[in-house]
């Protein structure tokens, strides 16, 4: 069962922009495996910005203190902010 969170998190990404480690609820999570990655564009015609950017999603397997869980992270290219959207743990 997954739970929805939507918490802002801090992420260390690889040079290719993929998440490697992140801190959520004061625990360090280390990414073990990337399961899925996709990109969603924004409805730019509804904003006044010329480039509202896109949202990048990762579904990853990560370890925190020996516990393995699956998480869904989202990166917004215009605000440059990361969110933890869901967790299966």
């Amino acid at each position, binding site marked *: 069962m997954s739970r929805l969170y939507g918490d802002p998190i801090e992420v260390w990404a690889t040079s290719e922009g993929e998440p490697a480690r992140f801190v959520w609820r004061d625990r360090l999570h280390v990414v073990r495996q990337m399961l899925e990655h996709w990109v969603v564009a924004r409805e730019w015609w509804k904003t006044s910005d*010329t480039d509202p950017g896109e949202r990048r999603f990762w579904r990853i397997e990560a370890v925190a203190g020996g516990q393995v869980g699956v998480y869904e992270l989202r990166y917004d290219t215009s605000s440059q902010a990361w969110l933890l959207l869901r967790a299966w743990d």
Partner: protein
Amino acid sequence: MAPFPHLHVASAYSLRYGTAFPAALVGRAAARGADILALTDRDGLYGAIKHVQACYRAAVDPVVGADLALAETGHAGPGAAPGAGAGAVLGAGARVTVLARGDGWGRLCRLVTAAHHHGSRGEPRVTRELAAEHADGLIVLLGPGSDVGRAVAQRRDGLARDLLEAWRSAVGDALVVEVTDHYGHRDAIIATRMLALADSARVPAVLTNAVRFLDPADHQVGHVLDASRDLAPLHAGHLGRAPSHAYLKDDDEMARVARRVCGADPERVARLLATTREVARACVLDPLQILALEGGPARLHLPEIGRDPVPLLRHRCEDGLRDRGLERSSAARARLAEELAIVERKRLSGYFIAVAGVTDMIRAMGVRCAIRGSAAGSLIPYLLRIGEVNPLDHGLLMERFLSEGRIGLPDIDIDVESARRLDCYRAIRDMYGAERVACVSMMETYRARSAIRDVGAALGLPPHEIDVIAKAFPHIRARQIRAALTDLPELRGSGLNDRLLETTFRLAEKLDGLPRHIALHPCGVLIGNAGLRDRTPVERSLLGFPMSQFDKDDVEEAGLLKLDVLGVRMQSALAYAVGEIARVDGEQIDLDDPASVPRDDDATYDMIRTGRTLGCFQIESPGQRELVAKLEPRTIHDLIVDISLFRPGPVNSDMVTPYLEARHGWRSARYPHPELREVLRETHGVVVFHEQVLRVIDVMTGCGLSEAEKIRRSLGDPDRREQVRAWFLANARETFDRATREEVWRVLDAFGAFGFCKAHAAAFALPTYQSAWLKRHHPAAFLAGVLTHEPGMYPPRVILDEARHCGVEVLPLDVNHSGATWLVERTGDGGYGLRVPFSAVKGVSEAEVERMVAGRPYHSMADFWERARPSRPVAERIAEVGGFDALHRLRVGAPRWRPGELTRRDLIAQVGALERASATGVRAGAGKTATPHGATGVPGGPGDLDGADAVQLSMGFTEWRTPGELPEMSEAEAVEAELEILGMDVSRHVLGFHGELLDAIGVTRSKDLLRCRNGAEVLVAGVKVATQTPAVRSGQRVIFATLDDSTGPIDLTFFESVQGRCAATVFGSWLLVAKGVIRRTGPRAVSLRAVDCWDLGELDQVLRQGGTAALRERMAGTTSERDDRGVGGRRLKYGNGYLLSPYSDIGPAPGVTAPPGRFWHASGGSSGETVRTRA
């Protein structure tokens, strides 16, 4: 690692889908070191030639394919193919990509043609069976968008396998699975599954990026294009269809995609990339097989003649010499020998034979046919009777048309009657066979107005607003939109510079130049041999003609023979006039026979000299009327010079003044060097023609005319100008000193790029003279032709006015005399009249016109209603403009109330009664027309000539109307109706209703302008009949407007200094009052430099509400509030100092060209305001 070959790439030639041009894609790929690049446009090979060309130049190996939609249900028999009905399950719009193998270009062309034939027009569909038929030269890629891909996406694994097997059994080893990942939500998973399916079925798999864009940022444009294709505003669903990852990724990025797809299995990644390269290698085409003009002598694909064309052409030319009476002319023989030598060296004999065959056939059909363009400079077309211009008479050169140095096919252009153009196409098709003939296409590209329309619709703006916004712009490029908003005074004040529209305009600019739809080229016809369909894909055009997917440049590159058969309205008008003369006067005229129409008729030239040339070919525009009045042509040669001078080049390098001064003897002709006298004598020392440029270069350097033609072509290229200059200065013979060389170079440089080909002008001068001759000697028939075929720039009401000035009466619509087109009638006093035709009535259909003409004569309106069976609105309109006046003896005007007498309004009301009567059951059957019924609807009306008061309609039910129950229309109302319904004022000039205002401000009439002194300031008024913004010497955008005030045309020039206050009014009004300064332009011609202008309707309003005092105040104007910034925009500057406004030489905004609904105050009574009173 070997470079990644992109095998699935859409360019801008994927209409309303791709955003990058082939050259840009190839350029990007080449810069990255790619050795192979494919182009697989959607639905056709529209960009294929350009792609192969770009690849050839960039040393990239080209692959060509097409991305085609699958027919929704295969054509397989019952149970034959698994999943044949799966289309419905998998959703519509599945597509496959087909690549030509190395030797499969012809097969690909034929498959694309077959797909277009299979689908409905513009919606090609391919089936497995079609692909199977052509599979020997193809590779079929099944990607995520294919039926197999969709089954995989829906996890219908069994169906996917069955479909894949069905494809395999259809196309065999042509089958390849294509995996793609655009980083969409499930893209990678689907790709992985497809890869697994391919592996298990042992079908090779390749990786592509299904490219749509050059750069990721272009995906917004992709969304707009998708929305415009869907005819729906943008919504979230569009996001996934044009993902930002669908761009031309580099090798690293593609390797990353491969790793995603293969689940990071390095061996599988390597295999996927290797297979992709293998397939790409197998599909590389030899560019020289497709490009006929590159690499060595041109390889042309001419029609089969059946015998050796060389001796055939020689014989035909020999016969031609005899026919044309040139047998004994040694000049003609020498010229012919020279021309034949070049033609035979270039192996073009068959080309001339083929063209002559076409023109012979067109003439045999009784269609007027004239040669145009540089081909008139060659003697061979004259001898073969392709054209009627003898190049020796005018000193025309063949080298301008065909020279040693020129690569490719020469163009022979033929003008035929516009109304018969399609007949000519059909005849050509029948003559050569449908397999060998196709029309040339052209891409309509996005310009400002179309871009605003499509973006506006995508963003969900209301349609009427989009319309208003789009129409506010002149015919500029889309990328100029925002610049135009600040540059042009008429847009500055329009309120369009709004922030809300910013997004619309920003996106519209991005569509600039993208192909929007394909259309039939107005004149190009391909005539090929049996292999034509292996060289060009062909689709159906709107008119049903087979149409090549290549444009005129592409077909030339492909080595196909193109003949330009242009429909020219003036040729139709001439033919019509000749027909009317024969019908009305029984006189047979052969315009091309100098015995019938002498080429030196003084009366004709006298008319031209006075600028009375409205309606004539080439010389009717305000500028040309001014020029002919100054130039005073007396021979056909003068007309050739006149036509050549009226071009941006001569106008801008100021050739006109020195020529005119020398011509009229105000100064003596000046020659840069005595040796050039011979060449320049015909134009008094001024270089006017391309031919003279060639001769000057030849005389001074001795390089030969072919070489000189090459030099002339380089003059137009700013990059090569310096080079040519150095060559010229160094190679001139010693006889010419340095100063002469420099002087001549300056002339050539200023002129070379813009001059006019004399052969072209000579070809034009003939119809110009013919039209003028007809206008002078048969004005009624000529103007009937002009009104019927509308060859010129003026609206019909101007031509009607011109007819009146020529003493021709304009006869109103009359159901018993009007025809389908404008007919000439003899009038009682021995003169001629022009009868308004049925086709002029707004909303009338062709079938109705046919019935109306066939049913004549009618003896009442009811009779007309029953036998001509018009729609109700059309019948009402005919009554409204007086079509029954003669029949029922009506007369508009006072008194309005005429008890007992029938009025037009009574008739209009009666139409309603007739319709209701017909609707209640008994429709007068077609079989009853033999016993026409009386005018039951108007008992006692004077039109009831049967005498019977009421011969009842067969249904035995009629509403009764008392004649005179409704008031008669006033004259003003009648003219208003004419403008509304016929688009022209037939009975009176509209200006006649503003007499009070015109008297109050004191306007000068057109006919009195000649008597005004130069520099006088006058007020004029009239209907705006034309606005133009041609290129002029100063680089300004100058607006030329022509008003018509019933006594003749008034030509006004608005310079940029006054446009701030005038531009919006000029473009936005129909009736204008203008203040201008008289400028005498010739002994019998004047034009006005405008200083201010007003909307006449507005002034009339002011006069009525505030009296003359208010009017004076309004016209004095508060100029301080007005915009005096003029026109902005950076002028384009040419090397020779010639400036061009970015807004000149384009179609201006349509503005107001038609009268508004009600524009003056109906004089007379207060009742009966509504014209369309319904019974």
